[in-house]
Structures are given as C-alpha cells and as structure tokens.
C-alpha cells in the first residue's frame, strides 16, 4: 500500500483552498488541520505545503497578512479570495465528478 501522505496530483491545492475557506490560518495550522480533518490519513510535508501556498497566493486565489497569533507571535495568515472561492467550487465539482466515476468502476461486482 502506498504511503498515506501520497496525495493525488493536484488535490493538495484544492484541500488547502477548502481548509482556508473555513477560516484564515497560517501555514502551520493548515498542515495540522489537514491531518486532523482527514483523521491522520493525509499529511503534507513542509517542502510541498509552502511552495503550494505561495503558488496559490501568486495566482490570486488566496491572500496573506501578517498578524499576531494566539501565543503572541507574528505569523503569516492566509485567507481565501473571491477568485479562490470560484476556483474551489470548480475544483470540488471536478473532484466529485472524477471520484464518483472512479468509485463507480471500483465498486462494480465481479462476475
């Protein structure tokens, strides 16, 4: 079986967008949240997370602000933009279509 952290290519962006749609978070919290929400099935290395965040910011889907976190440290918080919300809807729809198709095939009864 493959490692649980192996994300299907391209789904990381969508997951980050979804997590940030719920509330603005910093990078650390995004990686924690991903783990929690997937019940420890999905994980992302820092080496993938940060480039991904920067790429999404570059594309205008998320924006970043420096804010003080709960423990009084200056932290970079990301939040979803209007463009990002549209992108998330599009990617989620694509994903639903794709996963429905795949699970439809996987669930076929063998004769």
């Amino acid at each position, binding site marked *: 079986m493959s490692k649980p952290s192996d994300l299907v290519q391209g789904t990381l962006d969508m997951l980050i967008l979804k997590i940030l749609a719920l509330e603005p978070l910093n*990078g*650390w919290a995004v990686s924690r949240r991903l783990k929690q929400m997937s019940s420890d099935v999905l994980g992302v290395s*820092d080496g993938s997370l*940060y*480039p991904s965040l*920067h*790429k999404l910011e*570059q594309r205008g889907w998320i924006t970043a602000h420096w804010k003080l976190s709960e423990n009084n440290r200056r932290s970079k918080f990301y939040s979803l933009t209007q463009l990002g919300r549209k992108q998330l809807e599009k990617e989620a729809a694509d994903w639903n279509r794709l996963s429905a198709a795949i699970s439809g095939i996987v669930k076929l009864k063998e004769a």
Partner: protein
Amino acid sequence: MTFEQWFHTLPMRLRSFFRRKKVDQELEDELRDHLEQQIQEYLAAGMSPKDARYSALLARGGMTQIEQRCRDARGGNVIEDLVQDLRYGVRQLVRNPGFSLLAVLCLTLGIGANAAVFSWIEGILFRPYPAVAHQERLLALAGTARGETGPMPLSWPDFRDLQRSCTLCDAFFVSKITGSTLDVGERAEVTRGSIVSANYFDAIGVHPVLGRGFEPGEDAGSDAHPVAVISYQLWRSRFKSDPQIVGKMQRLNNVPHTIIGVAPEGFYGTFVGWAMHFWVPASMEETFESGGYKLEDRDARWIESYVRLKPGVTRAQAQEEISAIATRLEANYPATNRGRGIRLWPLWQTPFNNAGTLLPTLEIMLAVGAFVLLIACANVGNLLLVRSIARRHEMTVRLAIGGTRRRLLKQLFTEGLILSTLGAAGGLLVAYWCRHALVLLLPARSGVAMYLPGEIDWRVMSLSAGICLIATLIVGLVPAFQTRSIELAGALKAESSGVVGARGTAWLRSGLVVFQVCLSFVLLVGAALLLQSLQKIRTTSPGFSTTNVVQTGVSLISAGYDVPQAKTFQKELMDRVRALPGVESAAFARVTPLGYGTYSSTPIAVDGYQPPPEGQPTVDYN
C-alpha cells in the same frame, strides 16, 4: 491566466523582483515561525528542548530547498533569472573573446546578408517611393494587346477616358521617364526626368518646398506649357540652393523652360532604377519624345502611368472595372483599340521600370541569404557544441547541486540570445552600409548611374528581429540537446577520465557537419555555374575588342546645339580626346553595341508583305 489573476500577480512579481530582500526575509520568518510551532508541539508532548529542536529540524527538511521551491512557485524570479543569465552569459562571452568574436561575426554575416536583401526588396519592390502618400495602394497601369505577350504603353486619350470613368480609384497619374542634357554653369550632364500629368504632385501627395506644382490644364496643348519642377538635390548641387530659383529659365532639350518649383528633399520621383531630377507636364512631350504631337492621338501609345486605389478596394475589383472600361473603349474606337486591354500590376511587378527586371535577381539573393544564414547558424551551433563539451563539467555540477534542467536550458538560450542579438545589431549595421550597394552591381546606362536605395524601416527591422529569434533557437538548441544526455552519476565519474563527446554528441556533431556541407555544396554549385556563365560571357567574342574601352553618353541636340554646331563639336571633341595621352582611338556611335537600348530603323520593305496604308514597318535594332 485570466486578466483578474494578472491583476493580483503582476504587483506581486514586481515586488518579488524589486523588494527581493524583504520578500526573502518574510519567507524566512514564515518558515521559522513554522519551526517554532513544531518545537512547541514536541515540547508539549514531553520532549527535551534539545530533542524537540532536533526532531523539528529533521521533520522540516532542507530549509534552502523549501525556500528555493517557494521562490520558484512565486515565479517572480523570471526577471531575476533573466538578469542573472544575461550577466552570466556576458561574462562567459567576455571570458572567451575568440569564440565570441567568431560566433558574433558568423551571425553578423548571416543576419546582415538577409537584412541587406530585405532592405533592397523593401526599398526597390515593396516601398519604392517613400515620399509618396499611400504607396501601399499604388498600382502600375499598362496596356495589353492581342497577340502580344508583353505589356504595352497607353495612349493619352485612353488614359484620360480611364481617369474620367473609373470610380474605384483615388488618382490616376502619368510618369514617363525621359532625359535631357542639363547645361548649368560650366558643366553639362545627362539628367533623368519625368513627363507627368498635371495632377502628378497632388496625386502623390508631394508638395514642392519652393514655388508650386503643376496646375490643371498645364498638361494640355502642343508644347503649350514650358514649365518644370526640379529636384531638391539638383537645386542644391547645380543651382547652389538659389532662393530666387522660381521663375528662372532653364534649357531642357533645347527648349527654355520656366522653373516653377523645387520638390522636397528625399523625393526622387516614381521610377525604380534612376533618381528623377526634373518634371515637365505632358504638354511638353513633343520636346522630349519622338513622334510629334500625341495628346489627341489614340493610336500613339507612349505613356507609363499609375493608379491609387480607394481604401478597401482590392486589385481584382479595380481590374474588373478597368477591364469593363477597356471593353467599352474597344467598342467605341474599334480602329485604334481593337484587341486592346488595360491591366493593373502591383508595384513590385511594374513592367516599365527596373522593378520587374530586378525581381528574379532579388529572389535568388533571398534564397542565397537564407542559405548563408543557415550555414552561419550551423557554424555557430558547432562552435557552441564544442564549447558545451568543455562546459559539461559546469553543467553536471549545476545539475548535481539541484539546478533544474529547465533553468539550465533557459541559461543556454539566453546565451544564444546574446550572441544573436549582437549578430543582429551588427547585421543591421551591415545592411545600413550596404543599402546603396546594389547599384555597384549594375553598370551605369547612357552615362547616368542607377539609383536603387535599400529601405530600412520597421518592417525590415522586425523581419531581422524574427531572423534573430530563429537564429537564437537554432543556436541554443544545439547545446540544449547536449545537456539532455547528461547523466549525473555517469558524467561526474566520466569527467575525471576526460572522455569528450559521448555517442549522442558525436551524432549531433556529424549531423551538423553534414548539414553544413550540403548547404555549402548547393551554394558552391550555384556560384560555379554563375562563374561559368560569366566566363562564357567574357570569352564569347562579340566581334570587336572590349578591353580598355570606356564609354559615356552625350546628347547634343538636347543641350541646345543645332546640327552644324553639333558636327563641329563632335569633330573637335574627337580630335581633343584622341590627343589625350593614353588614348589610342575614339569614336562616336549612335547605338552602343550590346547596350541596353533599342532603336527603330528607318522604314523597311519586306518582300511579299503589303503594309497597311498608314503604317510602315520598322525594325528595332541594337
């Protein structure tokens, strides 16, 4: 990317480029923040501070790699990379001056040859009359006749009818080349000029800087309006920029003409091959043309003319209308116009000047230019290939320490771009120097040097830039191909053993050499054939000696001599020329043997042929 995204991206990219330090600092802060929180988590889980730090560092992985990947993700370093590559590329070129010079010279030659040919094609075929308004809508007008393959001149009455009835054209004007001896001050010389319709200057949008152009009606009547407009150059050189020139008299073809205007600087008339220096109205044609008064004779075909289409009208539409008018003329004047048509020609095929005759020559030059460019590219590619083998170590190390192949390719193409940009700059300089060089290949005719200027405008520039890009691609592709075959482990090991040229490279190199040899062979064969033809022309005996012969043209009658005076002049000139040291013999001839001009004989009789009552057969001879 959508426009909305660019709206976000552009400021960020500019920020990553111009505020690089701050952006880098922020990235570092962000990653450190992440690390601190990880440590906090481990501490909370009960690790010792030291272990917590150690584990957190381990979990995060290489800081530098993450930072680099973030920078790549931001994409802001496109500009940064370019600047870096340019700087590095220039340093590389400066470090190998011999190589760089050779490569740039090769490309200068390749691009320069093409740019020069482009500038000639532009200046002679496509934009021959830069001072003329809307020359892109200008077309040449010539007659056709049943049973004749070549184009024919038009008659003045036909031209007038055409001008009156055509609705799709802005302007019709006549511009027929002629010449005269111009006798000003102490020097007389043969000068080219044009016989034009009165609307000429208005139709082409050229306005005299002094005096006026022709007025309507000045092109009617028999020798009725002896007036002339002269060129700016003539005014400057022969009339010493005389501000009082307008109203002065000048003898042209033995008839005193009043100078009424001076054309603007840079206007050389509308004839490909010679610069025009004076213009006279069509009413003066008898003075300059043989055959008497022809303005009311529909059977006398002598004029060369142009039309300018209305905006948006195609040549085919205009041709249709003009053909209909020609058919009507044929019906109305069957005696003179039976079987005659009128045809429009694009300027670059103008049948009555040198555009048509130079077209094949320029086509060959274009092909040769393309060959030279390809050979130059192959040459430079080969040079780069050899150098890239020498640089294999550098490439391997860069790949080994984490440089991506993409980044490496970008750099190689940037180096190619530097080379070809320098080559293109040199090439344009070459083209600029060569813009009047075409004339050197063509002999002066009747003692008047030809005028065939190249034109370097934005179209030539952008074509050359395009060629430069193609050269960059070809030149950069060769070493790029080379990096494809680098295998890290193998290459690092092989490096020390000094093996140069893997199988792939050898294949590429021999491919390039074969390509070069093929192209050179084509050029060589072409050149050999050309030389052979030249040799044949040189060795074929025309029946007289052609060595050490110089010739020039004099036109005495047009200079105002009457026949007895001309005879005396000829005799005296001959005596004085023969007396010159170094002159063996001298002679006058009406026709230069093997020259370009043809002359009509006196009427001849042909056995068994009954000529029509109004015409007598003549032959053209040379």
